[in-house]
């Protein structure tokens, strides 16, 4: 048996501290997600984690590893990793952060495509690129400009991408200009480059096209 150590930032109603776990795995042998599952199954059933597909498609397993946002299922486990929940989104428990506000925001900000009917003929590369968003919330966690408390005024990168999905839709018919204001995109005028594990070029396709002169 080979053991490696993972430190996990835990938070429950009774606990708020970093806890070290020994996991039966070798460096790089399996995914970080699998190591977290092992801890939950074999050591502490109250360790809360979120995942769905185990490989890339659901976007539910994002965490911070040594300070950087990662998908736990796309990260090979290494000794001495520090695993924390995403920043800027309220923690439910341990590594699980809230999500249901996403549905509310979509409704409130009207991020719903309203397209002309009839057949599409041309699908742009931009549309394909912004369509890859899995709602993983990494961009919210990584952005220094985003704050959950202030999300009504400034919604955050993930939601700008949802607007971009409407804007680049081959049969766009929505009036998106009001939505740009409602989302507060101008606040991101000088934003640093925002990372996305799914390769959505957020600054280029979901911020730059919407900036207006004030």
């Amino acid at each position, binding site marked *: 048996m080979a053991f490696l150590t993972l430190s996990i930032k835990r938070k429950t109603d009774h606990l708020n501290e970093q806890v070290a776990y020994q996991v039966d795995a070798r460096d790089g042998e399996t995914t970080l997600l699998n190591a977290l599952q092992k801890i939950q199954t074999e050591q502490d059933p109250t360790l809360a984690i979120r995942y769905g*597909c185990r490989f890339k498609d659901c976007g539910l397993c994002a965490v911070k590893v040594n300070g950087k946002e990662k998908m736990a299922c796309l990260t090979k486990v290494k000794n001495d990793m520090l695993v924390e929940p995403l920043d800027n989104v309220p923690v439910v428990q341990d590594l699980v952060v809230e*999500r249901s506000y996403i549905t509310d925001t*979509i409704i409130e900000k009207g991020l719903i495509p309203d*397209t002309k009917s009839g057949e599409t003929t041309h699908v742009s590369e931009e549309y394909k690129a912004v369509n890859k968003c899995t709602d993983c919330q990494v961009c919210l966690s990584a952005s220094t400009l985003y704050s959950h408390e202030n999300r009504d005024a400034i919604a955050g990168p993930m939601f700008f991408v949802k607007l971009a999905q409407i804007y680049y839709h081959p049969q766009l018919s929505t009036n998106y200009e009001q939505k740009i204001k409602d989302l507060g995109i101008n606040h991101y005028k000088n934003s640093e480059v925002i990372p996305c594990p799914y390769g959505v070029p957020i600054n280029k396709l979901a911020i730059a096209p919407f900036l207006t002169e004030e």
Partner: protein
Amino acid sequence: MEVYYSDILCIGSGVAGLMSSIAAAELNRKICIVSKEPFSWGNTRISGGVIASNQGPSFFDDILKSGEELNSTKLVETLLQESDNIHDTLEDWGHVYQRDGKHKNKIKPGGHTEARTYVSSYKGISLGNILRMRLLKEDNVQVLEETAVCQILVEGNRAYGAMCFNWVKNEWSVIYASQIILASGGGGMLYAPHTDNMRSSTGDSYALALQAGASLVDMEQVQFIPFGIAEPVGMVGIEVGDTAAAGPYGVLTNDNGEVFLDDIPNQTREAVSRKIALQMSGGTADFRNTVWLDPSANTKEVAGRKAWENAKQAGSLEGLKYAYGAKSYKWKEPFKVVPTLHYIMGGVIVDHDGNTTVDGLMAAGEAVGGVHGAGRMGSMSLFEGLVFGRLVGHRAAEKVTGKRDQCVSKLVLQSFIDNYKKSLSNEKGVYSPFKLKDELSSVMWQYAGLIREEKGLRIALDKVIQIERKAQSLNIDWCNSAYRQVILNTIELKSMLVTAKSIIISALKRTESRGSHFRLDYPNESTLGLYNVRVNTSRDEMNAQIVYK
């Protein structure tokens, strides 16, 4: 405890749940849609997003051929009849298919004799998003996400509501509704880690239906797609693809490099998975050998290289890269494969309007049995979910009555919940639901998976009963919020145990090999004629019986 009221309660937010909710909302009904995952997460979202369309005279025959004629022909006819303009509707809502200028691309997944399948612009994610947005456009919709339905409330064969647990808020609730649509998907986790399904696919649909008094059909028919990743541990079962993923020149080899199967794309998922399993077991019931997919000959042929391009487009090669490295990704070297649980063909018995035998309880999507018989062709499940989702949503809307049948005082509701908790675990013990789930799924994989025989199935049944017993004394603290996921997993373990039993007793009953069901002790099809295996529960006793077609 929260109490909600709605005309229609829809359980599940995959393609079937979203479609039926949209259809019912369009008829101005009040909808409450509940999802154990975040809203619009489910297998639909992680699917390949390839969707069949009703084209070509051979469609009906293809479905029945893949299903080895166990299909309910009534349901298949309804599926085809009700599929008019389904893709136009999706496109009007903003769904985009991959296309070549004016024409949508068409592909031919395993089992189809014609190219009639469209490819979504970006896999299931794009479909899930369009349906989510379309439903949110409606006013009369209440979304309860991260909430598991634990029990359907029934009084004298009339379903009138459901008991739920919101695992994020750590809160119990009850929803009253005039019509309930069960659209909570499949149960791949019964064979974890040998599955490509979402974590939440724990067979809840089947367990809820039985608990409410409805019946199941052909639960032994569970589909293993032939190519799943075999290592490392965390990636076991992730989908590589169905028969098309071998490319026209790909071959399957054993540990010694000897070829045991070629011409793979022209065979069904069922046939290829069975051949792999028999190779893995050397003709016994125990797996001991490794099987390799060698796609390298494709790289030397035009059609082979085209197949690689298609696989790359579909996004199904990335798992190979991550698990096995660049050479396997480029199809330049062989890699290990293992069949992985993809879909449950069996399921809840419904009529052609989606009604179960319980008044007020309807079902759609992977929850339902009978459409695909003993084997499902690629791209048929999303198609079915769209068509039956829409149909069932309309029918449910028509059936809503203004009057509320049943309302129980909060005190009584609370006692329902307390009794339910007791039924989950009646004494404080040491067992963890996570561990018991693992125990159960390895029993299912070993004894009730690809290769079955009477002896193994009896062992499986005994072991399930042992796990059931352990599950009565779990380490669970109902009052401590840190146990929210323990509670969720306990609810799921309970569904898994019920569904596992239904699969095992059905597999014992079917003393023949057909489609996805292979019995080592009965390797041929029965000569006595076609039959379905029906499961129901009476007085807490689960029974399987044969019904000749």
